[in-house]
């Protein structure tokens, strides 16, 4: 029973490897079926594992005498896992259509599956070593997705992604060494593992270490100052890949930070220290800067990438406040942003796939050509801006309220203000597409207009994601209660 939690990890990885090593397969359907089936199965296995093996701990083996590889499904992991599975399945099916106009599909699907498995592993990781292990492998295995189309630009972006993430990973590793000495254990436990008497006298050192680790993981989460890779890497990838990257893989960084702050060092250890302040400042800068850059960005996918930068820092801000409400908001925003951003990227992908248009100013009248898609786009955009009754609104509400309640001098109101401004900017960079799309203006000639609505492979996933994002907004209480009950434990 307990080994069940290995299945959703190993199965997709093995499938992916088998796809990779197998020689180029001629008939496309076979490939698609294999992939699709394994995606579904993985998702189901994941579900099964969550249901059956929840809360249990599995010690796989020892890396060295002191480094065990442990898997454990706790609530935080469940949230991320669920989000991951949904997005991956949707994006996967979307790519069946999208990948038609790319070569080397087999390789793409192979790595796609591997990344899926590794993300599951990340969510189920029971101690920091395991987490770090898969974190690094995640970087290595998701790089091929980035540089898939092999253009010079893509390869460069891929390498950039690789080196930034590795840099982050190594910063995290640096902290790991110290945790190994000053912590009781390396496995995640609510409220932190810092050994008081060992830590005594080395507080400053440990704070520095914590800050370095936060920075390290925040590289993946695209937090300022280590965000530069994200706008370069996400857009060059195939649209479904960028959806996955932007929606899920960045969240791996978030998860890492959550684990470090709340499960290793413990909120109590960091609350009120310079680390919290510095971290918070960075997040706010990122929030603002990200939206600003997105606002100035003409290329749609790049614009979305920048928006990711800013939105993920919403989450990080929530976490940095270390108040129950704000953390709840952050975790909730993880989910909302995942759905929304995935949907947005898929839309962008569909547009590129059908029309080949990438720049926002080319998209006039796109709403006439593919109305369904653009409606989805509009709805999720509203969600991202944070207009009720979408999910984004709820999460941001909790973020802001939490910040206000936290009563930190200055930040308690600076934070919300920044969030508000950024929300406005979000509206500023997302809605123009809708507006020009639906109201192309007088000089738009409807003669040339032909329907370009993509087939269901593309529309269905987008629809699902949109609906989900709305549902979260409509019936938030289920999730919120669930999240709050375990967040209160760790904060």
């Amino acid at each position: 029973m307990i080994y069940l939690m290995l299945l959703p990890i190993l199965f997709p990885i093995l499938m992916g490897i088998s796809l990779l090593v197998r020689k180029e397969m001629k008939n496309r359907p076979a490939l698609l079926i294999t992939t699709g089936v394994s995606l579904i199965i993985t998702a189901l296995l994941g579900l099964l594992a969550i249901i059956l093996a929840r809360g249990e701990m599995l010690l796989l083996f020892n890396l060295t005498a002191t480094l065990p590889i442990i898997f454990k499904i706790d609530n935080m992991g469940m949230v991320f896992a669920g989000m991951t599975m949904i997005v991956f399945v949707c994006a996967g099916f979307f790519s069946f259509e999208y990948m038609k106009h790319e070569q080397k599909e087999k390789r793409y699907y192979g790595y796609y599956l591997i990344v899926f498995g590794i993300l599951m592993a990340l969510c189920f990781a029971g101690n920091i070593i395991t987490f770090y292990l898969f974190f690094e492998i995640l970087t290595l295995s998701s790089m091929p997705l980035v540089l898939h189309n092999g253009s010079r630009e893509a390869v460069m972006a891929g390498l950039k992604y690789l080196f930034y993430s590795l840099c982050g990973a190594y910063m995290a590793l640096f902290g790991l060494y110290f945790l190994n000495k000053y912590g009781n254990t390396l496995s995640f436990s609510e409220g932190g593992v810092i050994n008081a008497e060992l830590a005594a006298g080395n507080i400053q050192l440990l704070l520095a270490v914590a800050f370095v680790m936060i920075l390290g993981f925040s590289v993946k989460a695209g937090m300022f100052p280590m965000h530069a890779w994200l706008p370069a890497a996400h857009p060059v990838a195939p649209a479904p890949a960028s959806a996955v990257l932007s929606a899920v893989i960045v969240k791996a960084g978030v998860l890492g930070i959550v684990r470090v702050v709340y499960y290793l060092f413990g909120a109590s250890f960091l609350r009120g220290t310079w680390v919290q302040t510095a971290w918070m400042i960075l997040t706010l800068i990122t929030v603002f800067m990200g939206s600003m850059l997105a606002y100035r960005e003409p290329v749609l996918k790049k614009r979305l990438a920048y928006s990711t930068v800013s939105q993920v820092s919403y989450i990080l801000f929530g976490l940095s406040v270390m108040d129950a409400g704000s953390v709840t908001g952050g975790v909730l925003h993880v989910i909302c942003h995942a759905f929304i951003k995935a949907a947005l990227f898929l839309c962008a992908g569909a547009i590129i796939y059908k029309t080949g248009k990438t720049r926002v100013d080319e998209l006039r009248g796109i709403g006439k050509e593919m109305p369904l898609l653009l409606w989805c786009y509009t709805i999720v955009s509203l969600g991202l801006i944070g207009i009720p009754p979408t999910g984004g609104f709820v999460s941001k509400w909790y973020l802001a309220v939490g910040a206000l309640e936290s009563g930190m001098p200055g930040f308690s109101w600076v934070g919300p203000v920044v969030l508000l401004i950024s929300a406005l900017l979000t509206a500023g960079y997302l809605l123009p597409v809708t507006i020009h799309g639906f109201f192309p203006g007088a000089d738009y000639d409807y003669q040339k207009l032909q329907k370009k609505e993509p087939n269901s492979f593309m529309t269905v996933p987008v629809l699902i994601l949109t609906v989900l994002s709305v549902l979260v907004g409509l019936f938030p209480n289920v999730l919120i209660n669930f999240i709050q009950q375990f967040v209160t434990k760790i904060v």
Partner: protein
Amino acid sequence: MKEIMMLVVILLPIITGILVPLLPFKQRKHMEVFLEGLVVLNSLLVWWLLTGSQEEAFTLARFTGNLTITFKIDGMSMVFAGLVSALWPFATLYAFEYMTKEEHEKTFFAFYTMTYGVTLGIALAGNMLTLYFFYELLTLVTVPLVMHTLTREAILASRKYLYYSLGGAAFAFIGLIFIIIYGNTTDFVLGGVLDLNKIGDRTNTLLLIYVMAFMGFGVKAAVCPFNSWLPDAGVAPTPVTALLHAVAVVKSGAFAILRLTYYSFGTDFLKGTWAQTVVMLIAMFTIVYGCSRAVKETHIKRRLAYSTISNLSYIVFGATLMTPLGMMGALSHMVFHAVMKISSFFCAGAIMHQTDKHYVHELDGLGYKMPWVFTVFTISAFGLMGVPGLAGFVSKWNLASAAVESGNPVAYAGIVCLLISALLTAIYMLTIVVRAFFPGKDFDDSSIQDIKDPSWKMLVPLVIFTVFIILFGLCSGPVVSFLKDVANGGY
């Protein structure tokens, strides 16, 4: 009885080497069988010796005074001798295939095999004088290997190698003298042999001498600023570069440093002195320097050579921590790096042998033509980067945690150096991998159509090494605990 065996395992390869040019072999195959047979036999003997019960020291000859040529098996000799004797048969096997393209291979194999014996001599040396003696001898027998191709740069390189090594030995010699004068004995005793009463108020002089001797032995371990011979020596045939300049020769330098630090001067004498700081800084600088040079380098073997430089300084860094843990880390990196670097060198050799390509930018797309070689190369690259689950991670973990444990601020900085170098390692190794596997969109493989993997003689060692990289990475428990015993004076 077994005492004599120590002498036998040293002399057998030397005699074999002398015989090779003299014996009239009907055809090449006979020589191969003869050599491989004897080498394997010797390795078996060595292992039999090591696994056997503890033996008394065996004194061969007697110089002036109480200076003797003595052999003894203690923990460190077990590690080094075991390592060398494990690698040599494979390297020889590989050399058979590789040398088919080179001339007068008889001389080559003669010296190649003699080197085996001499290296074992270093490993089994029971006192400083013996170590010094074989150290000098090693230089002499390896020079012909470096100048094997007899091109102009080969000769220049061999000269440089000779001057550097003999010069280094000259300074190491001073250290030897001081151990003779101020030590109770010249034999290796864990914890040092210095007689503090004899030293009196001349501690600083002795520390100065230690630094001198350290630099002297450091020449072979390629610490800054005495490392420029190593990349030049890369002109030698690849089996030499792989085994000698990644394992035997350079590791014997590191080995000598360990002997000097832990077994002659003694850690309690050196620890916390300015000397320790100096040597540690040197090591740290070399770690970073080597990597950055490797990044700049475009010739594959030279790049690997620079990587060796930095990795050697990992070992030296571990040695300079002057704690049992540090020694353990040093030893583990000595073993693991040997396996990883030799396999990556063999890959480079295989590439050169099959394609006559020497530069990184020529490798585009070779990944699919030589899948085996490049898979192995990728794995070794990951290993060198320190991806968890591979050997490199373990040794780096040991080193870094030892550095943390030592509580020495300089050592903390050393950890940073380790991580920086890990990042740089990723850069210089993965650029090769990415080139090989992702040649880019518009790449035509017509030029490399008929390139394929080398024959089994080359592949077998590669695969075996890879297996070991993974094994060490996943369950390094037994090895590490053994090394820990060694470092704590067990055996």
